[in-house]
């Protein structure tokens, strides 16, 4: 464990670490672009210059191994001057159209210029013109002029995904990132290149020009896309969620996440959500507040249990809810209603153990392990055949389903609705509306529930690692979590003072929208 002095501060780093890692460990600032902790060292931006005592020439911190007793600084005049010029060199051919650029606000070049540069530029020559708005593939757009050739994206494609779609073509200041025609940037991890791009050269087609980043807030979350449980940040404003980015966790996802996981914000947004509870059956639905819908469903369930005994009610759970919700729901059903018929709806059993070798898993539920643990605790022995037999034999009169939050990963949605609708009563908790449900033949309660971004909780990932996440924002304030639903089903009142309020959506002037003709 070498000990070294960085800007006068003692730091201890693991053997083999570089000076830049020591800087990060010591919490001090160092200017850099091309170095990324998840990639190999390229050493091409030449900005992480440091002065090492005893070495006359400045060294780059990313390729210099930290040795015991080293005295390093990056606040001497010489280093500052070099970094300043290094930034100037970066900006020579970089267009200064920050207002148009989508990266503005989270741009490495902007940030570091303000921190380390801030000089009077002397460049008065024509900038090199390169291609703009290059379509790299289904997800990413390239602006070559903005590229500072840090080579992070090419290294990512070479080292992490090993697909090598991107290359740096030509040489000198005509170098351009690009793809070979016919080989687009098309894998499940493309948007990581957008994340690691320190400038606005690579932008995501999905997010590009949709929002300025300074309007967005971010909150920690866990990706609900598959059982890997990548640690993510969701970016949102009062209009809803706009994108999902990975958060570093070396134990789970490292620095990356997959493109599939990045789409999980979409069904959370208000236009895709079930906003009110719906009670009724095919073609005749009555809307009511989620709270009322749940209460009436609870009363019906009690009736069924009273009349036909607890065997007549079945509870079907999907692996898309938090451990806390499972617990609360099971407490009510197992101890309250004395239910034994508890089943685990597995969406794609044949693909459950698929793995692409990097992050993405075939089990598209974030909390299968958590659900299994909860079921075990509840003593459930529910086998799917029993449910089927019970439904066919009309023994089961009511089915309660904690339906999938993300219906797109449940290809058997129609089939299962038809199956459960054989019972007379169907209580279905769902975050999004579903055509299958709207065609249900049983008397059905569609009760809107919160999505992962709207509640705090814990997911247990495929490793059995429990990952807590906080509430990020509230999109549908009236929707319930399963824990709340369990309370309401039991006939209790919710504490309305504690419930989240609506965020108001887009700002409106009442004067122009509500006041009509004078």
């Amino acid at each position, binding site marked *: 464990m070498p000990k070294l002095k960085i800007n006068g501060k003692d730091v201890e780093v693991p053997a083999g670490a570089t000076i830049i890692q020591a800087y990060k460990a010591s919490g001090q600032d160092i200017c850099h672009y091309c170095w990324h902790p998840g990639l190999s*060292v*390229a*050493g*091409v*931006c*030449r*900005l992480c*210059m440091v002065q090492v005592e005893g070495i006359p*020439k*400045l060294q780059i911190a990313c*390729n210099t191994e930290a040795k015991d007793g080293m005295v390093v600084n990056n606040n001497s005049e010489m280093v500052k*001057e*070099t970094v300043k*010029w*290094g930034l100037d*060199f*970066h900006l*020579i*051919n970089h267009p200064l159209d920050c207002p148009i650029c989508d990266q503005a606000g989270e741009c490495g070049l902007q940030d570091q210029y303000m921190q380390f540069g801030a000089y009077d530029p*002397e*460049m008065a*020559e*024509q900038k*090199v013109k390169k291609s703009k708005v290059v379509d790299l593939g289904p997800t990413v757009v390239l602006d070559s002029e903005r590229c*500072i*050739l840090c080579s992070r994206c090419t290294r990512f494609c070479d080292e992490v995904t090993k697909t090598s779609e991107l290359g*740096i073509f*030509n*040489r*000198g*200041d*005509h*170098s351009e990132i690009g793809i070979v025609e016919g080989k687009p940037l098309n894998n499940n991890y493309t948007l990581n290149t957008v994340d690691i791009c320190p400038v606005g050269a690579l932008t995501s087609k999905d997010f590009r020009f949709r929002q300025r980043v300074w309007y967005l807030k971010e909150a920690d979350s866990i990706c609900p896309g598959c059982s890997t449980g990548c640690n993510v940040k969701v970016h949102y404003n009062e209009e809803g969620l706009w994108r999902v980015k990975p958060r570093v966790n070396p134990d789970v996802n490292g620095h990356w996440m997959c493109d599939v996981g990045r789409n999980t914000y979409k069904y959370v947004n208000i236009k895709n959500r079930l906003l009110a509870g719906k009670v009724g059956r095919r073609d005749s639905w009555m809307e009511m507040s989620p709270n009322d819908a749940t209460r009436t469903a609870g009363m019906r369930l009690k009736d069924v249990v009273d009349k036909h005994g607890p065997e007549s009610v079945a509870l079907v759970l999907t692996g898309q809810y938090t451990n806390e919700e499972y617990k609360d729901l099971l407490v009510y059903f197992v101890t309250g209603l004395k239910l034994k018929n508890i089943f685990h709806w597995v969406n794609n059993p044949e693909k459950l153990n698929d793995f692409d070798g990097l992050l993405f898993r075939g089990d598209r539920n974030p909390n299968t392990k958590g659900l299994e643990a909860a079921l075990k605790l509840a003593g459930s022995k529910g086998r799917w055949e029993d449910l089927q037999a019970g439904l066919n034999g009309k023994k089961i009169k009511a089915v309660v389903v904690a339906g999938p939050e993300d219906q797109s990963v449940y290809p058997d949605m129609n089939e299962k609705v038809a199956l459960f609708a054989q019972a007379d009563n169907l209580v279905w908790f769902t975050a999004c509306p579903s055509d299958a449900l709207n065609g249900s033949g049983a008397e059905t309660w569609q009760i809107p529930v919160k999505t992962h971004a709207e509640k705090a909780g814990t997911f247990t990932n495929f490793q059995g690692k429990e990952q807590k996440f906080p509430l990020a924002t509230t999109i549908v304030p009236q929707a319930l979590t399963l824990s709340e639903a369990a309370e309401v089903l039991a006939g209790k009142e919710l504490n309305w003072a504690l419930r989240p309020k609506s965020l108001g959506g887009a700002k409106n002037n009442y004067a122009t929208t509500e006041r009509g003709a004078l």
Partner: protein
Amino acid sequence: MQQTKLLSEHYDKPEFQNLDGYKKHGGYAVLAKALKMDPKAIIEEVKASGLRGRGGAGFPTGTKWSFLPANGEPRYLLCNADEGEPGTFKDRLMMERAPHQLIEGMIISAFAIGSKKSYIYIRGEYDYSIACVRKAIDEAYKAGLLGKNILGSGFDHDMDVYAGAGAYICGEETGMISSIEGLKGQPKLKPPFPAVQGYLRKPTIVNNVETLAAVKYIIRDGAAAYRKYGTEKSPGTKLFSVSGNVTKPGNIEVPLGISLKDMIEMCGGLKPGRKLKAVIPGGSSAPVLTADEAMKATMDYECLAQMGSMLGSGAVIIIDDSNSMVDLLDVIMHFYHHESCGQCTPCREGTGWLSKIVHRILKGDGEPKDIDLIKKVSEQMMGKTICALSDAAAMPAISFVTKFRGEFEQHLQKARTTSGGVAHA
């Protein structure tokens, strides 16, 4: 003054290109001698001779060889024949006139460092050289001088030619390694140095054509005999490529330490009626010498280093007073702009910037602050990048504008007066 012909002794004999002709002049006798020696003794001999790399950096060859780690990993010997430095043409001549001399030197060197495979990386433009060396290697294989069990010594060695495809940067040793590995010829980060992790991350020695050929003569005559030529710190002879405004430009072989004045005379002197203006003593990346400095200079590593220039690859470009220094700097800067590999930012952007400023001055759009700007930009490019191309571009820029500042200022003056007296503020 006469040339001291050691390496170039038989250049003018056409039969020297073939194995038979080469053997007639004592070819491969030294190899037989070397293969009986202890490899360590060869390295010691080369160390004792004080031979310094002839490619440009002038690093002592024996010392370089001793950096190889003592492990069982396969080692590679790469011969750098990517002679791209403007003004240099010594290696091309050797490969065309005496390819076996190079091959013999390489086998000896490979034996010394224990390498079983070597490559000669020749720049793609040298089509004829590639053909000559390929032919010579085939001859050597047929004669049992390459392949398994060379001359019954038990030493195996394979040699191949790898043709480049036009990139100055592949003359840099790690750039060349990248190129042979089939990548873009971009230099690699150091450390690790090639002697530790080079070609395919295995220990690798990269030497210039002339260096490897000289090894043969050191083993033939012994280190002491080699040291008789040249100066104390720069021993031996060196091939100089003299070009520019002299009447008889060409390759000459002279001991190091000869005065530049003599060298110009050996090449027939300047054209009648012309005055010496400047000399670039070591290829276009070497800082320029003024006429006064040139008259005092001796051609060895130390003297030129003292004068703030360098011996480089031994490409001496004589510039007389018919040339405009601004024009020449424009040519040189265009070259470096064209050849920057685009990896490190200061070089990628700096070479382009310098080229644009100098071109602007040349075209008459210069501004008074441009001269200082050239200097500032160049200083910030020095020693800030992975390889030395950035320095190679910065050094001539700085030396041109400081030593010939007057000429640059004149150009600015002229620009202002010719554009109707309107100053470009």
